[in-house]
């Protein structure tokens, strides 16, 4: 059979029909791959891990048996024998604890009353109830543990990483971006150098900062010796270890905020700034009244992205301290990972679900109450 005989024609026709079909259904063809992938990898795992969180899974010589126990796993974490690990130790309130708890309660009550006076929608009210409830619960948690002189568990540690870490990173990243947006020489150099830490693998950052903080063999050990802290071990002190992880995390993630904020600052029209300078405004006034309002939507978004990622922190504490001393630097992801290693799948899934709950409420509240408002304004 020679090429080009009628046998070849149907395949061309079929190809054309196929491309026609794709073109006519392009609205479906464009979106379905993403929808199917997300469905398979989110709905199924979410349901499956909920089932795991509600059961007790025992491994016996190669096989395992699953027993449905309703909320026992959550009960154990929140009220039972794992409470110290997840929430912290409760042993009565101190004076400062009462003061902080009551102050936050009054603040939230005031916010609630001022919202209820205005126009109320059903969705808005339900969402805000979640936000208020969670912030009330978490602040009483800190009031009962941190501010009353007791230790807190992995939930508190995770929130410490998220809020202290992201706050620090945002302020420093913004400040550096502002300095680099000034008319100085070598901006390209600083921009390139400040971006580098983002490219290093988090595991590597963990090890590098472990070397940095080593008081006997690390680069700063002469300084420690001189200060008389030669045998002080970072990893053995709860707060030192926590801050040390926040520093490593910040070293890595400040570049992200820096790059985005620098681009935002540079996109502010020069004319506005120069006009204000001619009118005799100080640089602080220029920043506060002209630059900041222009970049605030970007700032809110970049902070949201950072907060979402910060809740997932696991590699740094795992590498730098392995969660120690005790449980002082264990994040919730690490808690779930350790539970999984000890083959306690039910507890592991329960902790993961609690993390999911806290993350979703925090991020959605932040998105609706800060980001959307800033963008619309």
């Amino acid at each position, binding site marked *: 059979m020679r090429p080009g005989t009628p046998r070849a024609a149907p395949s061309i026709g079929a190809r054309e029909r196929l491309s026609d079909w794709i*073109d006519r259904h*392009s609205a479906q063809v*464009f979106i379905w*791959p*993403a929808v199917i*992938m*997300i469905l398979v*990898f*989110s*709905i*199924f*795992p*979410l349901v*499956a891990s909920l*089932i*795991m969180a509600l059961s007790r899974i025992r491994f016996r010589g190669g096989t395992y048996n699953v027993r449905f126990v309703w909320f026992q796993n959550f009960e154990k974490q929140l009220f039972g024998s794992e409470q110290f690990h997840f929430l912290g130790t409760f042993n009565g309130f101190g004076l400062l604890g009462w003061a902080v708890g009551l102050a936050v309660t009054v603040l939230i009550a005031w916010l609630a009353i001022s919202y209820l006076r205005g126009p109320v929608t059903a969705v808005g009210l339900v969402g805000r109830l979640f936000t208020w409830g969670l912030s009330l619960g978490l602040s009483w948690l800190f009031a009962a543990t941190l501010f009353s002189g007791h230790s807190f568990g992995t939930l508190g540690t995770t929130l410490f990483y998220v809020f202290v870490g992201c706050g620090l990173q945002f302020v420093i990243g913004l400040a*550096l971006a502002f*300095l680099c947006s*000034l008319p*100085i020489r070598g901006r390209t150099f600083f*921009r390139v*150098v*400040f971006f580098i*830490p983002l*490219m*290093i*693998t*988090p*595991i*590597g950052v963990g*090890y590098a*900062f472990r*070397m940095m903080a080593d008081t*006997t*063999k690390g*680069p700063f*050990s002469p300084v420690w010796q001189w200060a008389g802290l030669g045998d002080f071990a970072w990893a053995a002190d709860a707060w030192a270890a926590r801050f040390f992880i926040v520093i490593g995390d910040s070293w890595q993630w400040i570049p992200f905020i820096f790059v*985005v904020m*620098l*681009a*935002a600052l540079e*996109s502010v029209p020069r004319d506005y700034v120069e006009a204000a300078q001619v009118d005799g405004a100080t640089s602080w006034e220029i920043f506060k009244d002209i630059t900041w309002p222009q970049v605030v939507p*970007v700032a809110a*978004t*970049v902070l949201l*992205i950072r907060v979402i990622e910060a809740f997932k922190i*696991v*590699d740094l504490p795992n*590498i730098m301290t392995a969660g120690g001393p005790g449980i002082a630097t264990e994040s*919730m*992801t690490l808690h779930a*990972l350790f539970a999984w290693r000890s083959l306690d*799948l039910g507890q*592991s*899934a329960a902790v993961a679900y609690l*993390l999911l709950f806290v993350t*979703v409420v925090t991020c*959605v509240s932040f*998105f609706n109450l800060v980001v959307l408002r800033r*963008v619309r304004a």
Partner: protein
Amino acid sequence: MNRSAMQWLFEPPSIRDMAPGTKLIVYAILTFWTAFVLFPIYWVLITSFKSAIDVNSGPVYLPFVDFQPSLHAWKELFVFDFWDTLSAYMNSLIIALSATAASVIIGSMASYALARFEYQPRFGVVFMFVLVMIGAFVAVGRYGVDWRISCAVGVAVFYFLARALGRHFKARLSNGDILFWMISQRILAPIVVVVPIYMMFQQVSLLDTHIAIILTYTVINLPIVIWLMYDFFTSIPIDLEECAQLDGATRFGVFWDIVLPLSRSGLAATTLLVMILSWNEYLLALFLSTSRAQTMPILVAAMNAGERGILWWSMSVVIIVMIIPVVILAIILQRYISKGLLLGAVKG
């Protein structure tokens, strides 16, 4: 200090120029930060040339002055363990590049679709789908039904229910809802989904293969791509696309020849970000790979194992060689990055 000296130091001489005092402070801060950024990297770099004695006997700072640099760690990794290192490196490269390509393509297709077409799935149908699927999973999990049968029955039941009852649901979802649903998947912490994903790949015996990790990374990075690209696509004037369609271009042709080139700064920034995230990912790789598909972060973490303690020198070598591909990509894409990250993030 008298007044005129203060004035000279801190009063700007002209617009677009700064006073010497302010300049000094700014440079001091920037130099300090440069040192803070570079010093750990410098330390890792010189550690990779140190011998065990140099590391363990206390700090030494300058090669050739304080200590004699040796290539033993590099040799160990690239001569003695050549195949292990190479296989991990190739695994990482294949996985990161494929996952980046896949998530950028699928993600930008989806966000383009959300920016241009109007979708109105009925709320009731979506709800029905979730219910049927939950039923199918419970059947598998609790009653030991084979997962293939259960899924097939579930899809069939859903299809007939949707055909029969779909018309009666009035409430519809909009593009905004779909967009929010997709982006919100990023909030999902990997630890929540990793064990079920492990079981899923175990069922289809794809554990410890490239394809499993590539698929997983593609999905976890999709929300970021959709989030960053959506605003690019909405900001492209629709007239251009309509002209091309009048000239007979297909939808896909329009997307490929007009929309993608116009949004290349966004694509560049997104690609770099996704590449960094999938190149460095640790937790999912830890679950999904054991030996054959092992990636570089796992290799770094493994330097901690054994009775010899942490092999600081070998680990430093791995960290250094791990930066290279990202730096190459960053250099290729750097022109677009700052602009790209900005536009995507403006509207959120």
